[in-house]
């Protein structure tokens, strides 16, 4: 019998800056995710939030994935387009580290989505077939450290940008707590945009989400290890879903996205 695939598109390695969290050691985290039945992980690095030497962040991320992943962990490199010569970092992610995608944190890196640098980044990423993951928030704004208050990303300029880069594949991370209704629909309509379920809340949240968001745009994400990774799996259980819906959210959609990005289709 084929194993049941489960692709977690929202995981970070290394240390959360504000506290030690359980499983913030790559070996432990990989073991825990495997126990949860996860078969592939798209991993960024918490170091990418605040470190300025992003080249070493991405090199460490790649090495950690190689050393501890045994095929489980796919590195998604951090790019900060406010840093000098960020284009070289993007090139290294694609060519040296052979990453399938990038992860962006505009609110931690201090730029708005109408910054021309982001438009260039999207264009370069699309040309190289790199998936772009953009994190809307990392933690609840109400309980942030008083010296590190980071508001959610203002996504209003994003729809225009997506229309200008139609071949971009964009995954919005941690977005479903702050993006809903027409604003979310506009982003989904504007391009090949995906969302993941780590910050989706409410009883039967996935059932309700699928009333407004096409099934093929919904991915499984846990935001581990900052969140207990069990939460996302339990959401699959709480909602009444068809086998087809479950299968696509668990892995089908993410696998297809990855394959299409890698083939340049």
């Amino acid at each position, binding site marked *: 019998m084929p194993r049941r695939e489960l692709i977690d598109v929202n995981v970070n390695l290394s240390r959360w800056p504000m506290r030690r969290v359980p499983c913030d050691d790559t070996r432990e985290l990989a073991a825990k995710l495997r126990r949860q039945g996860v078969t592939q992980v798209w991993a960024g690095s918490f170091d990418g939030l605040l470190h300025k030497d992003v080249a070493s962040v991405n090199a460490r991320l790649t090495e950690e994935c190689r050393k501890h992943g045994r095929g489980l962990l796919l590195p998604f490199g951090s790019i900060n387009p406010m840093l000098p010569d960020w284009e070289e970092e993007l090139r290294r992610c694609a060519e040296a580290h052979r990453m399938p995608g990038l992860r962006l944190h505009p609110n931690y890196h201090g730029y708005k989505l109408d910054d021309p640098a982001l438009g260039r980044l999207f264009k370069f990423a699309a040309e190289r077939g790199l998936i772009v993951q953009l994190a809307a928030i990392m933690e609840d*704004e*109400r309980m942030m450290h008083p010296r590190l208050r980071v508001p959610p990303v203002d996504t209003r300029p994003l729809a225009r940008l997506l229309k200008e880069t139609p071949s971009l594949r964009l995954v919005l991370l941690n977005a479903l707590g702050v993006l809903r209704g027409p604003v979310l629909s506009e982003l989904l309509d504007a391009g090949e945009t995906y969302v993941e379920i780590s910050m*989706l809340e*409410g*009883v039967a949240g996935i059932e309700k989400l699928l009333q407004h968001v096409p099934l093929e745009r919904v991915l499984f994400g846990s935001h581990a290890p900052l969140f207990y990774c069990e939460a*996302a799996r*339990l*959401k699959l259980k*709480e909602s009444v879903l068809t086998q087809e819906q479950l299968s696509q959210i668990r892995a089908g959609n993410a696998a297809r996205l990855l394959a299409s990005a890698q083939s340049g289709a």
Partner: protein
Amino acid sequence: MEIWDLHCHLSGLPGRTPDERLGKLIEYADRMGIARLCVYMGMEWAYDPSPEKLREDNDAVLRAIGRYPDRAFGFAYLNPKHTQASLDELNRCVRDGPMVGVKLWVAMRCNAPELDPLIARATELKAVIFQHTWLKITGNLPGESTPFDLVELAKRHPNATLICGHSGGDWERGLRAIRPHKNIFADLAGGDPTAGVTEMAVRELGANRVIYGSDVAGRSFASQLAKVYGANIPDSSRRLILGENLKRLLRPILGQKGIRV
């Protein structure tokens, strides 16, 4: 292990009536293996409810739990700004009715003396008292309590059973604030499933002062259960948090009402 959910609401659910909504909630609770739900506040909430609105909200809960007496308990929603009306609701819903607890939200900070007669009466009736708390760096609502406010109340009422809603939201500070006060229990409900919250609560308070709740329907059962299932704690602690602690706190009032659990 039997799971009891301390913290459930009827808002944000499909259904025209309170009992239809509770029925829907129970369908999802069944999927997640949850045996009992504590329900409070009405179909639509008010920060500062009038006496009429309190009665309406409590009537909604009475109607809902009346349909599912083996699955749900009710807590009476009170407003300390309306002392006599709140005392009347306590007597109507708890002394003379099936409710087993009190819910206090954001009408008035809970360190105010106006709460004293309500807490005293609830304690006489053996009702547990759930006080919403949050510590927001973005700023609390004018009447929104913090765990520090609850500590002041607990000192004045050492025999009351007080539950610190949401563990103060900012749980790393909230749990520390309530730590020395043995009559305050921590509610795990309502925040993101941030890893480490349950481990810290067990480490600092002891597992017998930590209670699972979800804050559905605004939150999911899933994300909140994950705080307990995902925590690196002994199974004996998990059992206490998921049900045994709440049973222990409710046993006196349930016994008084002739309800065996």
